[in-house]
């Protein structure tokens, strides 16, 4: 057992604003190697074979356990397994604790394997990227959120088509792949990373798997988890100001303070529409109020302006 390294207020504010936190090469090489040995391997394709059979072979050879939904996350993986060791890393424990509170609950996991062109050619299967989508189904919860941890156990190049996601889309209420028509958005990111990189995502973020145009099979492991209790004030609060003072807005002569919660919550994404970008700020402030347990909090008067009588 290790002590968690909790997130800072700025990190949590960034998660509220952008819907993700990225930790590059956070998992040591020995755990990555152990995971790859346990995950299951894809056999080389057979000409005329069925594409489904390849994925079935991966599943059949995998030593990652089937885990019932609703299992305490701490009981999901056998002690000593790569995933148990990964979840015990101080930074991983701290990120999960900071976002979900104590005793998080396992929802589901999946090994996403993205195959290079020869696999698709052998099975006469079209090699295309995954449509952009939001996971699960339309989620009417106003503030509470689940976390999806994406684990990249080996280095991912651009040609391998790592996960594509659009920062800041997580607060929009949409229905899974109904938005599949949005092929590209300005500001989209593709996961190009070192081995052992972790991406913690708000469940609502728009994302999809990229097309693999390399010669190598790509593996990514996802774990979805949710809170069992309060998500409020679970991070390292030592850098959290007691009460934010409103600052001058619009007519300002100096740049905003970098790294403050207010600046983070009011920094736009490149894809923001002119009018609804302001509503994004409103919804970020609402989520921050919830997490900070501070119903009077505001950033740059966006909600106060709508609330005073």
């Amino acid at each position, binding site marked *: 057992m290790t002590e968690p390294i909790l997130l800072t207020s700025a990190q949590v504010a960034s998660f509220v604003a952008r819907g993700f936190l990225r930790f590059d090469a956070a998992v040591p090489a020995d755990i990555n190697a152990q995971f790859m040995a346990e995950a299951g391997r894809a056999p080389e394709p057979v000409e005329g074979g069925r594409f489904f059979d390849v994925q079935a072979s991966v599943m059949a050879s995998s030593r990652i356990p089937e885990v019932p939904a609703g299992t305490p996350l701490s009981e999901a993986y056998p002690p000593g397994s790569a995933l148990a060791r990964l979840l015990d890393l101080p930074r991983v424990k701290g990120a999960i604790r900071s976002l979900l509170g104590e005793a998080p609950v396992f929802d589901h996991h999946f090994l996403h394997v993205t195959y290079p062109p020869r696999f698709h050619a052998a099975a006469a299967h079209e090699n295309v*990227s995954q449509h*952009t989508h939001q996971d699960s189904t339309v989620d009417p919860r106003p503030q509470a959120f689940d976390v999806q941890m994406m684990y990249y156990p080996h280095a991912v190049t651009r040609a391998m088509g790592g996960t594509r996601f659009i920062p800041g889309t997580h607060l929009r*209420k949409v229905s899974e792949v109904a938005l599949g028509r*949005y*092929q*590209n958005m300005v500001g989209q990111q593709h996961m190009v990373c070192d081995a052992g990189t972790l991406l913690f995502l708000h469940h609502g973020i728009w994302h999809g798997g990229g097309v693999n145009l390399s010669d190598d099979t790509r593996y990514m492991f996802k774990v979805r988890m949710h809170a069992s209790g309060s998500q409020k004030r679970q991070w390292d609060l030592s850098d959290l100001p007691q009460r934010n003072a409103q600052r001058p807005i619009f007519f300002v002569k100096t740049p905003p303070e970098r790294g403050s919660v207010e600046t983070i919550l009011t920094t736009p994404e490149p894809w923001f*529409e002119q009018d609804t970008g302001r509503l994004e700020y409103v919804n970020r402030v609402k989520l921050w109020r919830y997490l900070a347990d501070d119903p009077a909090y505001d950033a740059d008067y966006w909600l106060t302006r709508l609330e005073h009588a």
Partner: protein
Amino acid sequence: MTLRQKVLVLYLKNSALDSPVLGWAVYDGTGETLHMAGDADAPPYATGLAALRDGWRLIQASQLLPHARGEELDLSYLKYEFFFEQLVEVGP
């Protein structure tokens, strides 16, 4: 003469056709090109008007709808969607 349709979908910064492109999709009915999610990080045109000037025909624009009472702050799909087409001759 056989015609095939190319479709361009642009998502703009506001309802004005000359506002910047924020998102896009291309579907090529000729089969000459295949476009897919994540295949480009820069938009094909700076604005909707630039697409018009390049020969794309506007065939549909999203409506401006009033906000439902009580849901004024809720966000969902992108608002400013414009469909364009080109009709292209293909071989016999």
